[in-house]
């Protein structure tokens, strides 16, 4: 239960940061928080109490002793995607900063929404 509450809290904090903060870097941190929350939620869904990691590390382990491996595999993929998005975002922010010499969103809006 604690995992669900934490992950949803993370998602909400992240959304708050993206929507309210004016600093570009903080907005990106917010995005990463949303991602992190989602990943945690996904892992929490696949978690089974008192079960071990889905690796055949001992002879005696059977599939019934393990947690669901699929969410873990998917989350690994999702983490990589999140990393790529964050990297692109930061690269774009560098370019924006070079151009405008500020990180405040309100000051760099030249295009209309």
């Amino acid at each position, binding site marked *: 239960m604690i995992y669900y509450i934490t992950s949803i809290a993370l*998602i909400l904090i992240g959304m708050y940061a*993206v929507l309210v903060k004016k600093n*570009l870097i903080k*907005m990106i941190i917010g*995005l990463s928080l*949303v*991602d992190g929350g*989602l990943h945690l*939620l*996904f892992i929490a*869904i696949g978690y089974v109490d008192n079960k071990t990691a889905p690796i055949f590390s001992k002879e005696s382990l059977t599939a019934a002793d393990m947690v669901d491996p*699929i*969410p873990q595999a*998917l989350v690994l*993929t*999702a983490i990589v*995607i999140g990393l*790529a*998005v964050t990297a*692109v*975002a930061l*690269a*774009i*922010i560098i*370019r*924006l900063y070079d*151009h405008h010499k500020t990180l405040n969103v309100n000051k*760099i*809006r*030249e*295009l*209309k*929404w």
Partner: protein
Amino acid sequence: MELNFSPVHFIAVPLFAAFLLPLLGRVSQKLVTLVPGVVLLYLSVVAITLFPQAYDTPIVEIIAGWRPPFGITLVFGPLAAFLVTMITLIGFVVWLYSYRFIIREPLEKYYMLFMLLIAGSTGIILTGDIFNLFVFLEITAIAAYSLTAFLRDHNGAEAAFKYLLIGSFASAFVLLAIVILYANVGTLNMADIALRMGDVPDKIKLTIMILFIVGLGIEAELFPLNGWAPDAYSQAPSPIGAVFAGIVVKAAVYALMRVLFTLFDLPTSSHFLVVMGTITLLVAEMSAMRQQQIKRMLAFSSIGQMGLVLVAFGLGTKEGIAAALFLMFSHAVIKTMLFFSAGYLVFFSGHKNISDLEGMGREKPWTGFFFSLGALAIIGLPPFSGFWAKFYLLVSAANASHIFLIALILFSAIIEAVYYLRVVGRLYFKKFNDIEIRKTPFTGLLAMGILAIVTLVIGVYPDFIHELVLPAANELLDKAAYLQYAMIGQ
């Protein structure tokens, strides 16, 4: 001769080319320009070779020997065949156009991202796995963000940031939808999910559906989630604007429809689609009228056309979906041509504003001609493909006895006529204000010429495409058949 083509090539070849290009760049810049063209030509050949087979019996490719529902499958049915062929052909034409267009920035970066984008969007269409769909959506999106920011001298970075922020939210929604879906059905294969969907409580189903509509709707330019589109279209390099309109949006619309039609039962969503499509259409057309910049106008017009596509899908009849696919094809061809010619007009005159393009049509007769042709085609005048797209849409709306829709579609055509012909008028009937004019590259003219011929030929023989879209529409409607062949080996 036995040719061993397989749908995997559509994803693997451009992906491989994308990672090969930076290496090739060290050998020769000429190779960097040529390889994407060869790849896209090859993909077009594969698509056309596999085409009859897909219409006969859909090809289901099982990746790495894991049978569905455990492994990832690629499903190459009529719908996928139609859209993938469209994407590879448009991609090839875009390459022709880019051949001489990109000048200052590093070539290998541009083509690498372009190849990734092709791999991502064909992947979206081919995959039979919902998480795989998410991955391809992200590949496409990341390539699209970077391409939007490609030109340093434009406002690209700002448009790209906006796009990235909205796009990341979209992907968060899609991922959340997948998480909830997985928690309830315990599988990721789309056909398998569809089979187990009956056990899911209605409220959870609705939640998942809303999350999917919001997440995929952002990429599919559904109102009010399309705030990123006009900026991204106008700030990206011109060929990329064409790619957004011709490829990315089409793949996203496909994803939305696949999820809505296959995972969820249609009747609950169809009214919703008609209403959202109508609002998207009206708002976009009204906004297009007010635009001063030619590319922003094209972007809004593109959103409006996507609204029409959604309305057509929302009708939910076979005819309606066929009309939607026809419209998607026709729009991909015409809007690509419009973006190409608008790109040259902006490039030669050095101004983005419509008012600064006065007399360009006299100075650049071919470019102006292609733009005017595209404008007439998209309004829906015969003998262009745009006419038949709207005609089929009107017929299906009439058969579904949605009289107000007919009025709406015709009304939107009038608005389109106003703002397109305003530009065309300026191109020809105003005096040219003196600026230096360079020569239009031959490949650019060739690219536009091919598209012009396609829209004309389809305008004269619409049955050719119409016969192709009917089985494709059937695939989307006939859920049982899709489940049967996508779950091969069950």
